[in-house]
């Protein structure tokens, strides 16, 4: 897996990424994955990442981009 932009988060990220990939390929793609089994691991990773983003001052510009991208949801969160 790829590294985190915050080296101190690499370990928790690796654990989460492995969990997700397993869930994605073995359950989600086979129509058996409606719940996220990796939520607890994601919480640990997210906690680490959030403080790193704040420290680096990336959190503010992320918020703006996130708002802009929500416009894409209407077209893409729909089954065709």
């Amino acid at each position, binding site marked *: *897996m*790829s*590294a*985190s*932009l*915050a080296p101190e*988060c690499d370990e928790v*990220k690796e654990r*989460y*990424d492995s969990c*997700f*990939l397993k869930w*994605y*390929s073995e359950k*989600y*793609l086979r*129509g058996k*994955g*409606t*719940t*996220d089994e990796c939520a607890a691991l*994601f919480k640990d*990773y*997210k906690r680490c*990442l959030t403080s790193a*983003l704040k420290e680096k001052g*990336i959190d503010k*510009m*992320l918020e703006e*981009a*996130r708002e*802009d*991208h929500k416009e*894409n*949801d209407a077209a*893409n*969160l*729909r*089954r*065709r």
Partner: protein
Amino acid sequence: MKVFSNDEVFDYSWEEVSTANWRKYCPWNDKSTHVIAVDTLSRSVDPESGILRTERLITCKQSAPKWLASLMGGNETSHVFETSYVDPVSKKVTMISSNLTFANIISVQESVVYQPLSATKTQFVQNAKITALCGGWQKVKNAVEDATVTRFGENARKGKEGFEAVLEMSRRVFREEKEKARMEVEVQEKMAA
């Protein structure tokens, strides 16, 4: 505004491609070295459609040409924000990304779609809209846009090569794991007998 478009076909199933796509920038990909980190910001399965929605932050080494980098303030890294959607029923991955860094100078809006062509082939369609926002001479804007389009083409070519390596390794590891599991079952059966 300039447009960059690119189409590729991968000789792998959509399931393999969409899985390997999550680790496109892992160490198996020794071509896309400009990507130094990929972080997941949020992830959820939409309760109504069943579509997996993911937000990621991609961190790149500054790869702009020197004159452009100095014009843009000389940061060492740049960031891209990506929202992706996976529909496992209609078998479609859509990824939409835009630049966070230098957003006041240039806007790069990219979309990538992965869809199956057959059971063993997957199509990749990439489109990017590049718009220089800096005020002033059209000549400067054109040069900024052209340089960005050129860099996009280079990275797209490297990205394809690197992703092919990731796909090959993913398939090999998957086979090895399956073989290992099969042998473990055999050993257990022998011990039980």
